[in-house]
Protein backbone atom coordinates (compact mmCIF):
# COMPACT_ATOMS: atom_id res chain seq x y z
CA UNK A 1 0.00 0.00 0.00
CA UNK A 2 1.18 3.50 -0.74
CA UNK A 3 2.10 5.32 2.49
CA UNK A 4 0.85 8.60 0.96
CA UNK A 5 -0.79 9.62 -2.26
CA UNK A 6 -2.32 12.55 -4.09
CA UNK A 7 -6.07 12.63 -4.53
CA UNK A 8 -8.84 14.90 -5.63
CA UNK A 9 -10.76 15.38 -2.39
CA UNK A 10 -14.20 16.89 -2.21
CA UNK A 11 -14.54 19.80 0.17
CA UNK A 12 -17.42 18.88 2.47
CA UNK A 13 -17.52 21.84 4.83
CA UNK A 14 -15.79 25.20 4.93
CA UNK A 15 -16.05 27.70 7.76
CA UNK A 16 -14.22 30.85 8.82
CA UNK A 17 -13.33 30.18 12.46
CA UNK A 18 -11.97 33.62 13.21
CA UNK A 19 -10.92 36.43 10.88
CA UNK A 20 -8.68 34.89 8.21
CA UNK A 21 -8.65 31.41 9.74
CA UNK A 22 -10.50 28.72 7.81
CA UNK A 23 -11.68 25.27 8.76
CA UNK A 24 -12.01 22.76 5.92
CA UNK A 25 -13.27 19.22 6.08
CA UNK A 26 -12.53 17.15 3.01
CA UNK A 27 -13.62 13.69 1.99
CA UNK A 28 -10.67 11.35 1.43
CA UNK A 29 -11.24 7.86 2.80
CA UNK A 30 -7.96 6.44 1.49
CA UNK A 31 -5.80 9.23 2.85
CA UNK A 32 -7.64 9.43 6.18
CA UNK A 33 -7.03 5.72 6.69
CA UNK A 34 -3.29 6.33 6.55
CA UNK A 35 -3.06 9.52 8.59
CA UNK A 36 -1.72 10.07 12.09
CA UNK A 37 -1.89 13.21 14.27
CA UNK A 38 0.90 15.68 13.56
CA UNK A 39 1.36 14.63 9.96
CA UNK A 40 0.63 17.10 7.25
CA UNK A 41 -0.65 17.45 3.72
CA UNK A 42 0.67 19.24 0.65
CA UNK A 43 -2.30 21.05 -0.83
CA UNK A 44 -2.26 22.08 -4.46
CA UNK A 45 -3.48 25.55 -5.31
CA UNK A 46 -3.97 25.54 -9.10
CA UNK A 47 -1.70 27.99 -10.85
CA UNK A 48 0.98 27.59 -8.20
CA UNK A 49 4.11 25.54 -8.71
CA UNK A 50 4.57 24.59 -5.08
CA UNK A 51 1.96 22.94 -2.93
CA UNK A 52 1.14 24.44 0.46
CA UNK A 53 1.99 22.38 3.54
CA UNK A 54 -0.92 22.31 5.99
CA UNK A 55 -1.09 20.14 9.10
CA UNK A 56 -3.78 17.59 9.58
CA UNK A 57 -5.95 19.01 12.35
CA UNK A 58 -8.17 16.05 12.91
CA UNK A 59 -8.73 12.64 11.37
CA UNK A 60 -12.21 11.30 10.72
CA UNK A 61 -13.11 7.86 9.46
CA UNK A 62 -13.34 9.10 5.88
CA UNK A 63 -12.38 12.71 6.26
CA UNK A 64 -9.51 14.99 7.12
CA UNK A 65 -9.84 18.36 8.72
CA UNK A 66 -7.50 21.27 8.03
CA UNK A 67 -7.41 24.63 9.77
CA UNK A 68 -5.34 27.24 8.03
CA UNK A 69 -4.66 30.92 8.11
CA UNK A 70 -4.57 33.18 5.07
CA UNK A 71 -0.96 34.31 4.84
CA UNK A 72 -0.33 34.94 1.18
CA UNK A 73 -1.65 34.28 -2.29
CA UNK A 74 -1.93 30.52 -2.02
CA UNK A 75 -3.87 30.33 1.24
CA UNK A 76 -6.00 33.24 0.07
CA UNK A 77 -7.05 31.35 -3.05
CA UNK A 78 -7.64 28.24 -1.00
CA UNK A 79 -9.92 30.13 1.37
CA UNK A 80 -12.25 30.85 -1.54
CA UNK A 81 -13.03 27.19 -2.16
CA UNK A 82 -16.62 26.19 -1.54
CA UNK A 83 -18.17 22.89 -0.46
CA UNK A 84 -18.45 20.64 -3.49
CA UNK A 85 -15.16 21.84 -4.98
CA UNK A 86 -12.33 19.36 -5.45
CA UNK A 87 -8.96 19.94 -3.81
CA UNK A 88 -5.82 18.06 -4.82
CA UNK A 89 -4.19 16.81 -1.63
CA UNK A 90 -0.94 14.91 -1.21
CA UNK A 91 -1.04 13.21 2.20
CA UNK A 92 -0.32 12.03 4.79
CA UNK A 93 3.25 13.23 4.97
CA UNK A 94 6.01 13.22 7.55
CA UNK A 95 6.25 11.93 11.08
CA UNK A 96 3.61 12.94 13.59
CA UNK A 97 3.56 13.01 17.38
CA UNK A 98 4.49 9.78 19.21
CA UNK A 99 1.22 9.31 21.05
CA UNK A 100 0.92 7.16 24.13
CA UNK A 101 -2.56 7.41 25.71
CA UNK A 102 -1.09 6.02 28.91
CA UNK A 103 1.09 9.06 29.37
CA UNK A 104 -0.30 12.31 30.67
CA UNK A 105 0.60 14.72 27.89
CA UNK A 106 0.91 18.48 27.94
CA UNK A 107 -0.10 20.00 24.62
CA UNK A 108 1.29 23.48 24.11
CA UNK A 109 -0.18 25.38 21.20
CA UNK A 110 0.03 28.94 19.98
CA UNK A 111 -2.12 30.62 17.35
CA UNK A 112 -2.24 28.71 14.11
CA UNK A 113 -0.06 26.10 15.85
CA UNK A 114 -3.09 24.99 17.86
CA UNK A 115 -4.95 22.98 15.17
CA UNK A 116 -2.41 20.17 14.70
CA UNK A 117 -2.68 19.39 18.40
CA UNK A 118 -6.39 18.69 18.20
CA UNK A 119 -5.80 15.34 16.52
CA UNK A 120 -3.31 14.54 19.25
CA UNK A 121 -5.82 15.36 21.98
CA UNK A 122 -8.37 13.15 20.27
CA UNK A 123 -5.93 10.27 20.09
CA UNK A 124 -4.96 10.72 23.74
CA UNK A 125 -8.57 10.12 24.69
CA UNK A 126 -8.66 12.60 27.54
CA UNK A 127 -5.23 12.03 28.99
CA UNK A 128 -4.09 15.51 28.00
CA UNK A 129 -3.82 19.03 29.24
CA UNK A 130 -4.01 21.52 26.42
CA UNK A 131 -2.57 24.95 27.11
CA UNK A 132 -3.45 27.15 24.20
CA UNK A 133 -2.37 30.70 23.52
CA UNK A 134 -3.82 33.37 21.23
CA UNK A 135 -3.26 37.05 20.63
CA UNK A 136 -6.71 38.02 21.83
CA UNK A 137 -10.23 36.78 22.49
CA UNK A 138 -11.33 37.14 18.85
CA UNK A 139 -8.60 34.82 17.67
CA UNK A 140 -9.36 31.96 20.04
CA UNK A 141 -10.19 28.86 18.01
CA UNK A 142 -11.07 25.22 18.64
CA UNK A 143 -11.64 25.58 22.40
CA UNK A 144 -14.82 23.51 22.29
CA UNK A 145 -13.23 20.93 20.03
CA UNK A 146 -10.44 20.41 22.52
CA UNK A 147 -12.89 20.19 25.41
CA UNK A 148 -14.85 17.56 23.53
CA UNK A 149 -11.81 15.31 23.48
CA UNK A 150 -11.94 15.11 27.25
CA UNK A 151 -8.72 17.06 27.62
CA UNK A 152 -8.29 19.70 30.25
CA UNK A 153 -8.17 22.98 28.35
CA UNK A 154 -6.53 26.20 29.53
CA UNK A 155 -6.42 29.35 27.43
CA UNK A 156 -4.08 32.32 27.52
CA UNK A 157 -4.23 35.53 25.52
CA UNK A 158 -1.51 38.09 25.02
CA UNK A 159 -3.80 40.95 26.02
CA UNK A 160 -5.76 39.08 28.68
CA UNK A 161 -9.04 39.57 26.83
CA UNK A 162 -9.77 35.91 27.44
CA UNK A 163 -8.35 33.42 29.91
CA UNK A 164 -4.96 33.98 31.42
CA UNK A 165 -3.07 37.10 30.41
CA UNK A 166 0.40 36.11 29.38
CA UNK A 167 2.39 33.17 28.18
CA UNK A 168 0.82 29.85 27.46
CA UNK A 169 3.61 28.11 29.34
CA UNK A 170 2.52 29.93 32.51
CA UNK A 171 -0.61 27.81 32.41
CA UNK A 172 1.39 24.65 32.91
CA UNK A 173 2.65 25.67 36.35
CA UNK A 174 0.27 23.52 38.32
CA UNK A 175 0.10 20.70 35.83
CA UNK A 176 1.61 17.29 35.95
CA UNK A 177 2.67 15.57 32.72
CA UNK A 178 5.03 12.92 31.45
CA UNK A 179 5.56 14.23 27.97
CA UNK A 180 5.19 17.56 26.21
CA UNK A 181 4.11 18.26 22.64
CA UNK A 182 4.13 21.71 21.14
CA UNK A 183 3.30 23.55 17.97
CA UNK A 184 3.42 27.30 17.44
CA UNK A 185 5.69 30.27 16.86
CA UNK A 186 9.41 30.08 17.59
CA UNK A 187 9.44 31.86 20.96
CA UNK A 188 6.63 29.66 22.21
CA UNK A 189 8.47 26.54 21.09
CA UNK A 190 11.54 27.72 22.96
CA UNK A 191 9.43 28.29 26.05
CA UNK A 192 7.86 24.86 25.73
CA UNK A 193 11.27 23.28 25.24
CA UNK A 194 12.57 24.98 28.37
CA UNK A 195 9.54 23.78 30.30
CA UNK A 196 10.08 20.18 29.24
CA UNK A 197 13.71 20.55 30.21
CA UNK A 198 12.82 21.86 33.69
CA UNK A 199 10.40 19.04 34.26
CA UNK A 200 12.79 16.49 32.83
CA UNK A 201 10.23 15.06 30.44
CA UNK A 202 10.63 14.37 26.73
CA UNK A 203 9.46 17.18 24.48
CA UNK A 204 8.28 16.99 20.89
CA UNK A 205 8.13 20.10 18.75
CA UNK A 206 6.43 20.57 15.39
CA UNK A 207 8.44 22.76 13.02
CA UNK A 208 7.83 24.63 9.79
CA UNK A 209 10.09 25.17 6.83
CA UNK A 210 9.58 26.15 3.19
CA UNK A 211 9.03 23.03 1.16
CA UNK A 212 8.98 21.88 -2.42
CA UNK A 213 8.34 18.13 -2.67
CA UNK A 214 7.04 17.47 0.85
CA UNK A 215 8.17 13.85 0.69
CA UNK A 216 11.94 13.94 1.23
CA UNK A 217 13.10 13.92 -2.38
CA UNK A 218 14.28 17.48 -2.96
CA UNK A 219 16.09 18.22 0.31
CA UNK A 220 14.44 21.63 0.31
CA UNK A 221 13.16 21.80 3.88
CA UNK A 222 16.41 21.51 5.79
CA UNK A 223 16.58 21.70 9.57
CA UNK A 224 19.78 21.54 11.58
CA UNK A 225 19.77 18.40 13.75
CA UNK A 226 22.29 16.75 16.05
CA UNK A 227 22.73 13.02 16.21
CA UNK A 228 23.39 11.01 19.33
CA UNK A 229 27.07 11.98 19.35
CA UNK A 230 26.46 15.71 19.00
CA UNK A 231 27.41 15.69 15.34
CA UNK A 232 25.43 18.24 13.37
CA UNK A 233 23.70 17.62 10.06
CA UNK A 234 20.72 18.78 8.05
CA UNK A 235 17.60 16.69 8.35
CA UNK A 236 14.34 17.49 6.63
CA UNK A 237 11.14 18.78 8.11
CA UNK A 238 8.94 16.95 5.61
CA UNK A 239 10.38 13.49 6.14
CA UNK A 240 12.20 13.45 9.47
CA UNK A 241 9.54 15.74 10.95
CA UNK A 242 7.59 17.97 11.10
CA UNK A 243 7.60 16.66 14.69
CA UNK A 244 11.05 16.32 16.23
CA UNK A 245 12.21 15.18 19.66
CA UNK A 246 13.53 18.46 20.99
CA UNK A 247 16.91 17.03 21.93
CA UNK A 248 17.57 16.32 18.26
CA UNK A 249 17.19 19.95 17.26
CA UNK A 250 20.30 22.06 17.01
CA UNK A 251 18.24 25.10 17.91
CA UNK A 252 14.58 26.00 18.06
Amino acid at each position, binding site marked *: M*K*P*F*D*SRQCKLLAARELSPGIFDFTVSCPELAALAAPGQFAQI*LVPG*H*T*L*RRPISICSIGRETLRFVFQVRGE*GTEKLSRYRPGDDI*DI*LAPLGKGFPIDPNKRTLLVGGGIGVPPLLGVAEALGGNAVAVLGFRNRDLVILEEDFKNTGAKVLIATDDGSYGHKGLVTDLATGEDFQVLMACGPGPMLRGAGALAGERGVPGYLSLE*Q*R*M*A*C*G*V*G*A*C*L*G*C*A*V*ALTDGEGRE*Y*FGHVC*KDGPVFPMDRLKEV
Partner: protein
Amino acid sequence: MEKNNKLSVNIAGVEFNNPIIAASGTFGFGREYGELYPLSELGGISCKGTTLKERPGNPPPRVTETPGGMLNAVGLQNPGVEHFINEDLPWLSKQGTRIIANIAGSTVEDYCRTAELLNGTAVDMVELNISCPNVKEGGVQFGVTAEGVEGITRAVRERCKKPLMVKLSPNVTDITEMAIAAESGGADALSLINTLTGMRIDINSRRPIIRNNTGGLSGPAVLPVAIRMVWQVCNKVKLPVVGLGGISTWQDAVEMLLAGAVAIQVGTAIFTDPYAPIKIRDGLLEFMDKKGVKSVSELTGGVRPW
Protein backbone atom coordinates in the same frame (compact mmCIF):
# COMPACT_ATOMS: atom_id res chain seq x y z
CA MET B 1 4.77 -0.54 -17.99
CA GLU B 2 5.79 -2.97 -20.68
CA LYS B 3 8.47 -2.01 -23.03
CA ASN B 4 6.88 0.05 -25.75
CA ASN B 5 9.07 0.31 -28.77
CA LYS B 6 7.37 3.45 -29.95
CA LEU B 7 8.69 5.27 -26.93
CA SER B 8 12.13 3.77 -26.54
CA VAL B 9 15.11 5.94 -27.29
CA ASN B 10 18.81 5.39 -27.46
CA ILE B 11 21.06 8.01 -25.93
CA ALA B 12 24.76 7.52 -26.48
CA GLY B 13 24.33 3.79 -26.72
CA VAL B 14 22.08 3.45 -23.69
CA GLU B 15 18.56 2.21 -24.39
CA PHE B 16 15.79 3.96 -22.43
CA ASN B 17 12.31 2.41 -22.32
CA ASN B 18 10.80 5.81 -22.80
CA PRO B 19 12.15 9.33 -23.12
CA ILE B 20 10.90 10.57 -19.73
CA ILE B 21 13.67 10.94 -17.16
CA ALA B 22 13.36 12.37 -13.66
CA ALA B 23 15.61 15.43 -13.33
CA SER B 24 18.47 15.50 -10.90
CA GLY B 25 17.73 16.92 -7.47
CA THR B 26 13.98 16.68 -7.80
CA PHE B 27 13.60 12.93 -7.39
CA GLY B 28 16.19 12.10 -4.75
CA PHE B 29 17.46 8.57 -5.28
CA GLY B 30 14.01 7.43 -6.26
CA ARG B 31 12.82 5.99 -2.96
CA GLU B 32 10.14 8.55 -2.14
CA TYR B 33 8.30 8.67 -5.45
CA GLY B 34 8.98 4.95 -5.81
CA GLU B 35 6.22 4.58 -3.21
CA LEU B 36 3.74 5.96 -5.75
CA TYR B 37 4.62 4.08 -8.91
CA PRO B 38 7.15 1.51 -10.06
CA LEU B 39 10.24 3.38 -11.15
CA SER B 40 10.27 1.19 -14.25
CA GLU B 41 7.51 3.44 -15.54
CA LEU B 42 10.19 6.06 -16.13
CA GLY B 43 12.77 5.91 -18.86
CA GLY B 44 15.39 6.81 -16.31
CA ILE B 45 16.29 8.68 -13.19
CA SER B 46 18.97 11.30 -12.91
CA CYS B 47 19.91 11.00 -9.27
CA LYS B 48 20.50 13.84 -6.83
CA GLY B 49 23.89 15.41 -7.52
CA THR B 50 26.64 13.57 -5.73
CA THR B 51 30.16 14.64 -4.84
CA LEU B 52 33.36 12.91 -3.84
CA LYS B 53 32.80 13.62 -0.18
CA GLU B 54 29.62 14.13 1.78
CA ARG B 55 28.27 17.70 1.69
CA PRO B 56 25.97 19.26 4.28
CA GLY B 57 24.21 21.62 1.88
CA ASN B 58 23.07 25.17 2.52
CA PRO B 59 21.18 26.39 5.57
CA PRO B 60 17.42 26.91 5.10
CA PRO B 61 15.30 28.36 3.60
CA ARG B 62 16.43 26.54 0.50
CA VAL B 63 13.33 26.80 -1.66
CA THR B 64 10.60 29.30 -2.44
CA GLU B 65 7.98 29.95 -5.04
CA THR B 66 8.16 32.46 -7.88
CA PRO B 67 5.60 33.33 -10.56
CA GLY B 68 5.29 30.15 -12.62
CA GLY B 69 8.30 28.58 -10.97
CA MET B 70 10.50 28.25 -7.93
CA LEU B 71 13.97 28.99 -6.62
CA ASN B 72 16.19 26.45 -4.92
CA ALA B 73 19.55 26.59 -3.27
CA VAL B 74 19.90 23.16 -1.76
CA GLY B 75 23.63 23.40 -2.20
CA LEU B 76 24.35 19.84 -3.23
CA GLN B 77 23.55 18.24 0.09
CA ASN B 78 24.47 14.61 -0.44
CA PRO B 79 26.10 11.74 1.43
CA GLY B 80 29.03 11.41 -0.99
CA VAL B 81 29.49 9.14 -3.97
CA GLU B 82 30.59 6.10 -1.99
CA HIS B 83 27.46 6.20 0.09
CA PHE B 84 25.50 6.51 -3.14
CA ILE B 85 27.25 3.47 -4.58
CA ASN B 86 26.89 1.36 -1.45
CA GLU B 87 23.50 2.40 -0.11
CA ASP B 88 21.39 3.70 -2.97
CA LEU B 89 22.63 2.08 -6.12
CA PRO B 90 22.04 -1.56 -5.14
CA TRP B 91 18.35 -0.82 -4.61
CA LEU B 92 18.05 1.57 -7.53
CA SER B 93 19.64 -0.79 -10.00
CA LYS B 94 16.91 -3.32 -9.31
CA GLN B 95 14.08 -0.97 -10.21
CA GLY B 96 14.10 -1.62 -13.94
CA THR B 97 14.93 1.90 -15.02
CA ARG B 98 18.07 3.60 -16.28
CA ILE B 99 20.25 5.18 -13.63
CA ILE B 100 22.10 8.39 -14.36
CA ALA B 101 24.57 9.53 -11.73
CA ASN B 102 24.72 13.32 -11.55
CA ILE B 103 28.14 14.39 -10.32
CA ALA B 104 29.54 17.69 -9.09
CA GLY B 105 32.67 18.89 -7.40
CA SER B 106 34.92 21.78 -6.47
CA THR B 107 37.96 20.81 -8.52
CA VAL B 108 38.55 18.98 -11.76
CA GLU B 109 40.23 16.24 -9.79
CA ASP B 110 37.15 15.85 -7.57
CA TYR B 111 34.99 15.36 -10.63
CA CYS B 112 37.40 12.86 -12.11
CA ARG B 113 37.70 10.78 -8.97
CA THR B 114 33.95 10.79 -8.49
CA ALA B 115 33.49 9.58 -12.05
CA GLU B 116 36.14 6.91 -11.59
CA LEU B 117 34.44 5.55 -8.53
CA LEU B 118 31.34 5.03 -10.65
CA ASN B 119 33.19 3.10 -13.33
CA GLY B 120 32.62 -0.36 -12.05
CA THR B 121 29.06 0.23 -10.87
CA ALA B 122 25.55 -0.39 -12.15
CA VAL B 123 25.17 3.25 -13.19
CA ASP B 124 24.12 3.53 -16.84
CA MET B 125 25.36 7.03 -17.52
CA VAL B 126 27.12 9.90 -15.83
CA GLU B 127 25.73 13.42 -15.98
CA LEU B 128 28.34 16.08 -15.40
CA ASN B 129 26.78 18.91 -13.42
CA ILE B 130 29.03 21.85 -14.22
CA SER B 131 26.24 24.29 -13.71
CA CYS B 132 25.09 24.26 -10.14
CA PRO B 133 24.75 27.91 -9.22
CA ASN B 134 24.03 27.32 -5.57
CA VAL B 135 27.33 26.43 -4.03
CA LYS B 136 30.43 28.55 -3.94
CA GLU B 137 32.49 25.81 -5.49
CA GLY B 138 29.76 23.83 -7.12
CA GLY B 139 31.12 23.62 -10.57
CA VAL B 140 29.43 26.62 -12.13
CA GLN B 141 32.86 28.12 -12.66
CA PHE B 142 33.53 25.27 -15.05
CA GLY B 143 30.27 25.73 -16.88
CA VAL B 144 30.31 29.32 -18.06
CA THR B 145 33.38 29.52 -20.27
CA ALA B 146 34.11 27.41 -23.32
CA GLU B 147 37.58 26.58 -22.01
CA GLY B 148 36.18 25.53 -18.68
CA VAL B 149 33.57 23.28 -20.25
CA GLU B 150 35.98 21.70 -22.66
CA GLY B 151 38.65 21.22 -20.05
CA ILE B 152 36.53 19.49 -17.47
CA THR B 153 34.73 17.41 -20.05
CA ARG B 154 38.02 16.16 -21.47
CA ALA B 155 39.47 15.43 -18.05
CA VAL B 156 36.46 13.47 -16.89
CA ARG B 157 36.07 11.77 -20.26
CA GLU B 158 39.51 10.28 -19.88
CA ARG B 159 38.78 8.66 -16.55
CA CYS B 160 35.08 7.86 -16.93
CA LYS B 161 34.14 4.56 -18.53
CA LYS B 162 30.40 5.33 -18.64
CA PRO B 163 28.64 7.30 -21.34
CA LEU B 164 29.13 10.91 -20.35
CA MET B 165 26.38 13.53 -20.54
CA VAL B 166 27.36 17.14 -19.84
CA LYS B 167 24.67 19.31 -18.26
CA LEU B 168 24.83 22.92 -19.38
CA SER B 169 24.06 26.08 -17.50
CA PRO B 170 21.65 28.58 -19.09
CA ASN B 171 23.42 31.48 -17.37
CA VAL B 172 25.64 32.16 -20.35
CA THR B 173 25.73 34.56 -23.25
CA ASP B 174 25.93 31.86 -25.90
CA ILE B 175 24.86 28.35 -24.98
CA THR B 176 26.07 26.97 -28.31
CA GLU B 177 29.67 27.80 -27.43
CA MET B 178 29.37 25.67 -24.32
CA ALA B 179 27.77 22.86 -26.28
CA ILE B 180 30.50 22.90 -28.88
CA ALA B 181 33.11 22.94 -26.14
CA ALA B 182 31.53 19.91 -24.46
CA GLU B 183 31.46 18.14 -27.81
CA SER B 184 35.14 18.91 -28.38
CA GLY B 185 35.92 17.69 -24.90
CA GLY B 186 34.44 14.32 -25.72
CA ALA B 187 30.93 14.40 -24.28
CA ASP B 188 28.61 11.64 -25.48
CA ALA B 189 25.45 13.63 -24.85
CA LEU B 190 24.28 16.97 -23.50
CA SER B 191 21.50 17.85 -21.11
CA LEU B 192 20.11 21.35 -20.74
CA ILE B 193 19.06 23.48 -19.02
CA ASN B 194 20.05 23.68 -15.42
CA THR B 195 18.53 26.57 -13.42
CA LEU B 196 18.67 30.29 -14.17
CA THR B 197 19.99 32.26 -11.24
CA GLY B 198 17.31 34.30 -9.50
CA MET B 199 16.44 36.03 -6.26
CA ARG B 200 13.39 36.93 -4.18
CA ILE B 201 13.24 39.31 -1.23
CA ASP B 202 10.84 39.28 1.70
CA ILE B 203 9.57 42.85 1.70
CA ASN B 204 8.80 42.81 5.42
CA SER B 205 12.04 41.39 6.79
CA ARG B 206 14.02 42.82 3.85
CA ARG B 207 15.88 39.53 3.73
CA PRO B 208 16.42 37.43 0.63
CA ILE B 209 13.92 34.59 0.99
CA ILE B 210 16.57 32.03 0.08
CA ARG B 211 19.26 31.88 2.75
CA ASN B 212 21.90 31.60 0.01
CA ASN B 213 20.62 35.03 -1.20
CA THR B 214 20.25 33.74 -4.76
CA GLY B 215 18.89 30.43 -6.00
CA GLY B 216 18.20 28.57 -9.19
CA LEU B 217 14.98 29.26 -11.08
CA SER B 218 13.13 26.26 -12.46
CA GLY B 219 9.60 25.30 -13.41
CA PRO B 220 7.20 26.37 -16.19
CA ALA B 221 8.54 29.94 -16.18
CA VAL B 222 11.80 28.82 -17.80
CA LEU B 223 10.29 26.60 -20.50
CA PRO B 224 10.66 29.08 -23.39
CA VAL B 225 14.30 29.69 -22.50
CA ALA B 226 14.95 25.95 -22.39
CA ILE B 227 13.21 25.31 -25.73
CA ARG B 228 15.22 28.10 -27.32
CA MET B 229 18.54 26.85 -25.99
CA VAL B 230 17.90 23.25 -26.98
CA TRP B 231 16.94 24.42 -30.46
CA GLN B 232 20.07 26.54 -30.77
CA VAL B 233 22.31 23.76 -29.51
CA CYS B 234 20.77 21.12 -31.78
CA ASN B 235 21.48 23.36 -34.74
CA LYS B 236 25.14 23.44 -33.81
CA VAL B 237 26.20 20.06 -32.47
CA LYS B 238 25.61 16.46 -33.47
CA LEU B 239 25.44 15.09 -29.94
CA PRO B 240 22.16 13.77 -28.61
CA VAL B 241 20.54 16.40 -26.41
CA VAL B 242 18.31 15.70 -23.42
CA GLY B 243 16.00 18.68 -22.97
CA LEU B 244 14.69 19.95 -19.68
CA GLY B 245 13.57 23.09 -17.96
CA GLY B 246 9.95 23.83 -17.18
CA ILE B 247 8.37 20.78 -18.76
CA SER B 248 5.11 20.08 -16.97
CA THR B 249 2.73 18.75 -19.62
CA TRP B 250 3.01 16.30 -22.50
CA GLN B 251 2.59 19.24 -24.86
CA ASP B 252 5.71 20.81 -23.36
CA ALA B 253 7.52 17.52 -23.87
CA VAL B 254 6.49 17.37 -27.52
CA GLU B 255 7.73 20.93 -28.00
CA MET B 256 11.05 20.01 -26.48
CA LEU B 257 11.40 16.95 -28.71
CA LEU B 258 10.49 18.99 -31.79
CA ALA B 259 13.12 21.54 -30.77
CA GLY B 260 15.67 18.75 -31.08
CA ALA B 261 15.78 16.77 -27.85
CA VAL B 262 16.03 12.97 -27.99
CA ALA B 263 14.60 12.68 -24.50
CA ILE B 264 13.38 14.99 -21.78
CA GLN B 265 13.75 15.38 -18.06
CA VAL B 266 11.00 16.42 -15.70
CA GLY B 267 11.95 18.21 -12.51
CA THR B 268 9.94 20.86 -10.72
CA ALA B 269 6.66 19.64 -12.23
CA ILE B 270 6.98 16.58 -9.98
CA PHE B 271 6.54 18.83 -6.93
CA THR B 272 3.30 20.16 -8.34
CA ASP B 273 2.12 16.69 -9.34
CA PRO B 274 4.14 13.61 -8.37
CA TYR B 275 2.50 11.75 -11.26
CA ALA B 276 3.57 14.37 -13.84
CA PRO B 277 6.22 12.16 -15.50
CA ILE B 278 3.70 9.34 -15.97
CA LYS B 279 1.04 11.69 -17.32
CA ILE B 280 3.56 13.21 -19.71
CA ARG B 281 4.55 9.78 -20.98
CA ASP B 282 0.92 8.75 -21.49
CA GLY B 283 -0.01 12.01 -23.18
CA LEU B 284 2.98 11.75 -25.47
CA LEU B 285 2.02 8.23 -26.52
CA GLU B 286 -1.57 9.26 -27.18
CA PHE B 287 -0.41 12.23 -29.25
CA MET B 288 1.88 9.98 -31.26
CA ASP B 289 -0.94 7.54 -31.92
CA LYS B 290 -3.28 10.32 -32.99
CA LYS B 291 -0.69 11.76 -35.33
CA GLY B 292 0.50 8.38 -36.60
CA VAL B 293 4.02 8.89 -35.26
CA LYS B 294 5.60 5.43 -35.07
CA SER B 295 8.64 6.24 -32.99
CA VAL B 296 9.31 9.08 -30.63
CA SER B 297 12.59 9.74 -32.43
CA GLU B 298 10.56 10.93 -35.41
CA LEU B 299 9.58 13.93 -33.32
CA THR B 300 13.15 14.83 -32.44
CA GLY B 301 14.17 17.97 -34.30
CA GLY B 302 10.86 18.07 -36.18
CA VAL B 303 10.37 21.81 -35.82
CA ARG B 304 10.16 23.63 -39.13
CA PRO B 305 11.69 27.04 -38.49
CA TRP B 306 10.43 29.98 -40.50
